[in-house]
């Protein structure tokens, strides 16, 4: 079993829809929870990160962490065609240097 599980999709939604992306994990030591966006043939870029549990909002993006369920989510409101990309969740413990990534979910927002 992988430490981080993510549904690869693909996910296709109409412009303006609310998108929900999720990851589950097995390692209770994870404390940093991140969401990256990766466009085709580009490197991942950090969208948001959360330390420990709770919610964080940044514009149209909201990240949620539920450590009791080992479940994290990213919500995108008013989705735009420019949001079409692969979204990767990633996690890290307090100690060590390794970041553990999910497989990524491919999202297409249709105009």
């Amino acid at each position, binding site marked *: 079993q992988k430490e*981080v599980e*993510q549904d*690869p999709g693909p996910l296709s939604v109409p412009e303006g829809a609310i998108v929900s992306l999720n990851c589950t994990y097995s390692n209770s030591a994870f404390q*940093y929870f991140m969401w990256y966006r990766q466009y085709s*043939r*580009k*490197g*991942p*870029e*950090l969208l948001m*990160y959360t*330390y420990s549990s709770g919610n964080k909002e940044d514009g149209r993006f909201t990240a949620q962490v539920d450590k009791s369920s080992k479940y994290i989510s990213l919500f995108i409101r008013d989705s735009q065609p420019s949001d079409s990309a692969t979204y*990767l969740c*990633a996690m*890290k413990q307090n100690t*060590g*240097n*390794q*970041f*553990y*990534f*999910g*497989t*990524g979910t491919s999202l297409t927002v249709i105009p």
Partner: protein
Amino acid sequence: GAGVSQSPRYKVAKRGQDVALRCDPISGHVSLFWYQQALGQGPEFLTYFQNEAQLDKSGLPSDRFFAERPEGSVSTLKIQRTQQEDSAVYLCASSLRSGVWDTQYFGPGTRLTVL
């Protein structure tokens, strides 16, 4: 300012050849990471440098993989006697600080194809 750059962007190698992949991190960044991203997968950690010191190489899949950062800036990932399973995108990332979580800035990757 300039981001993380990697070269070459694409590399085709015959099985058994040695390859060298280069990463130029953002100037002044202390931490440097190498990842391997297979098709349809997320990045998998390979190794970590703090300045010139390789502090973690637990993700290197075999002793055919070797990384260095001799002057604490540019890094090279070398793969000896390449195999078909080495085909992947190799990503480099750098961050300003070490020892605590910090934003990683990724390069565009080198796509390695082993025939």
